[in-house]
């Protein structure tokens, strides 16, 4: 007698598109999805209740995208956010743009009205594929539920490979409820194509370095993305070439690395900007000559030849001619670069002297809280476990200038988009990704209120995120520009009628306290870091404090204003 054929085990049973979505996410190893339900995504939410991953219900879709973005920055794996059609989808857009500008792997999933209604201006119908085209690496409208597994697989691969970025998957409602057997088994990983690094360009780079007298490493966010921190440290150690960093490259070299001159650009350090202007060779590692870093491009590094290493061929030569152009992952390229180093001792000495002469000081007069000193102290107290999730404004620039980051993963900041409201949701994503870290959101009173509703998310999931709110009762960075470049004609920057933020946090069920004097700072930071649950330190600072140094917009980095900083 022959045994009955086990039909159920060999032939996949039809299931719904929504179920295939959940199964695909599970098979892709997703551990957390940030989202918010609504009519056009309800079948997926229905299937979610049995999912093996966690869903975090945020209180605004923008926060879902920001949290998923930060989760991705910390883990290196794609972050996932989920929203309904129409307003749910449009609320994701700022977060998608943020991920695009900072090359973050993000998978945004939206519901849409049924296929037959698409194009009819149906209730909550938005062409989200069209609306997000300029800010995604790729996107799909899935037309057949059977394609869900293969498209999800492809989407995760595209988001995370090469230069990472966001992708969008739009799911019409009929596709979510439609029955299907996956059209093909879950596809295997595409074969990794070995990167071909052009040896001729490598030799060109080596001879440019060999001929330089004042070479300088220009470290960008691509180093973190490539996982090349150790390679860059080894190269910088071996060659002793001084280094500067973009906002996104901070932490690749520790602050006390002798030849690390720190951040360049609009709020860069003087020693760093001066070194760029004086160097005769710029070795660009995973950076893109962003205008906030370069100031007026025509006068940026005027005496330098350029070696440009980047995974994205389209970045090379986009804004600055490269004398040696190496398309490839910094982690793969750098070990192949073995220049015969010329003697650069005078240059190293010049850079070190400039670094010492122009170092920040923390002895500002007065007994009010001095934000730069507080942030420096915060990073020191939190130590190697410190991860800052920054909002946008003066506080963001102070954090970049004064926090001592032990790795680029310790600094999560909205660089390319500069999106206020990023800080709290980014803190949520980062803390969920790295529960043992001291994750601290550094925010301002303007930015904080842009996603203040996420305090409810902190409370619901008991996420022990710490928040330092630097309250200058104004939109400080805008106020500073009005003071310096618009003749002190202050327009719509006054936030002196802010709510009592500590009381607001407490109303959300979150521990909060206030710091208003310099002498309270040390103990306040200790209390914040020691708190078991989420905690907010509401810090009152001088409304007239400015961020120095500053390169005026459109000017050369050689034309820095120093204010009262030196």
């Amino acid at each position: 007698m022959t045994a009955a054929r086990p039909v159920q085990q060999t032939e996949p049973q039809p299931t719904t598109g929504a179920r295939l979505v959940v199964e695909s996410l599970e098979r892709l190893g997703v551990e957390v999805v940030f989202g918010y339900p609504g009519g056009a995504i309800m079948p997926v939410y229905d299937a979610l209740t049995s999912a093996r991953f966690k869903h975090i219900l945020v209180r605004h879709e923008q926060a879902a995208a920001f949290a998923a973005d930060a989760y991705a920055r910390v883990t290196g794996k794609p972050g996932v956010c989920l929203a309904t059609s129409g307003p749910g989808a449009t609320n994701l857009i700022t977060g998608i743009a943020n991920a695009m500008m900072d090359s973050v792997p993000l998978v945004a999933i939206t519901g849409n009205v049924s296929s037959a209604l698409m194009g009819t201006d149906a209730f909550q119908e938005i062409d989200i594929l069209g609306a997000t085209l300029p800010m995604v690496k790729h996107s799909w409208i899935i037309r057949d539920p059977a394609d869900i597994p293969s498209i999800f697989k492809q989407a995760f691969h595209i988001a995370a490979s090469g230069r990472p970025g966001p992708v969008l998957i739009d799911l019409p409602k009929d596709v979510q409820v439609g029955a299907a057997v996956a059209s093909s088994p879950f596809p295997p990983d595409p074969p990794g194509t070995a990167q071909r690094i052009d040896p001729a360009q490598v030799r060109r780079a080596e001879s440019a370095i060999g001929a330089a007298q004042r070479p300088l490493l220009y470290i960008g966010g691509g180093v973190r993305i490539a996982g090349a921190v150790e390679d860059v440290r080894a190269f910088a150690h071996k060659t002793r070439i001084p280094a500067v960093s973009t906002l996104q490259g901070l932490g690749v070299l520790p602050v006390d690395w002798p030849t690390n001159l720190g951040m360049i650009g609009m709020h860069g350090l003087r020693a760093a900007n001066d070194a760029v202007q004086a160097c005769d060779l710029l070795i660009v590692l995973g950076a893109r000559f962003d205008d906030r870093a370069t100031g007026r491009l025509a006068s940026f590094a005027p005496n330098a030849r350029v070696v440009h290493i980047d995974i994205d061929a389209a970045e090379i030569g986009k804004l600055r001619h490269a004398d040696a152009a190496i398309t490839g992952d910094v982690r793969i390229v750098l070990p192949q670069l073995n220049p015969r180093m010329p003697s650069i001792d005078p240059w190293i000495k010049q850079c070190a002297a400039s670094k010492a002469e122009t170092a920040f000081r923390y002895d500002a007069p007065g007994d009010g809280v001095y934000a730069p000193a507080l942030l420096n102290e915060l990073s020191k107290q939190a130590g190697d476990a410190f991860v800052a999730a920054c909002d946008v404004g003066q506080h963001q620039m102070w954090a970049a200038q004064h926090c001592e980051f032990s790795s680029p993963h310790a600094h999560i900041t909205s660089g390319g988009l500069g999106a206020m409201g990023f800080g709290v949701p980014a803190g949520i994503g980062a803390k969920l990704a790295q529960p043992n870290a001291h994750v601290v959101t550094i925010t301002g009173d303007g930015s904080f209120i842009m996603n203040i509703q996420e305090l409810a998310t902190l409370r619901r999931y008991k996420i022990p995120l710490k928040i330092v709110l630097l309250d200058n009762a104004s939109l400080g960075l805008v106020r500073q520009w009005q003071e310096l470049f618009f003749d002190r004609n202050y327009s719509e920057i006054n936030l002196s009628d802010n709510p009592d933020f500590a009381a607001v946090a407490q109303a959300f069920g979150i521990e909060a306290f206030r710091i208003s004097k310099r002498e309270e700072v040390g103990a306040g930071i200790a209390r914040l870091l020691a708190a078991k649950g989420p905690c907010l330190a509401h810090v009152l600072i001088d409304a007239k404090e400015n961020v120095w140094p500053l390169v005026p917009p459109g000017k050369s980095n050689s034309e820095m204003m120093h204010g009262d900083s030196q």
Partner: protein
Amino acid sequence: MKDAFLIQIDHAEGSLQRLVGLIERRGFYIADMSVSDAGAFREVHIAVRERDAGRCIHALGRQIDKLIGIRRVATNASAVDHQGVSVCPA
């Protein structure tokens, strides 16, 4: 000056919109365009002009080449260079 591209692109939904949007967004004016169905893909002939002096046709070629679903990009400005040194920026 007008430069012409020949582009082979997948049939995927949104692919033409993606291509045209990229070209305009990157600072080029589309002077002429034709699309034909070549079976497994679509073939697009497109003539573009920079909107201002700061635009680099080679950078545009590389940006088009990066789009998912592009099979081939060729331009009369000179072959689009996948690895090489761009000559456009000063």
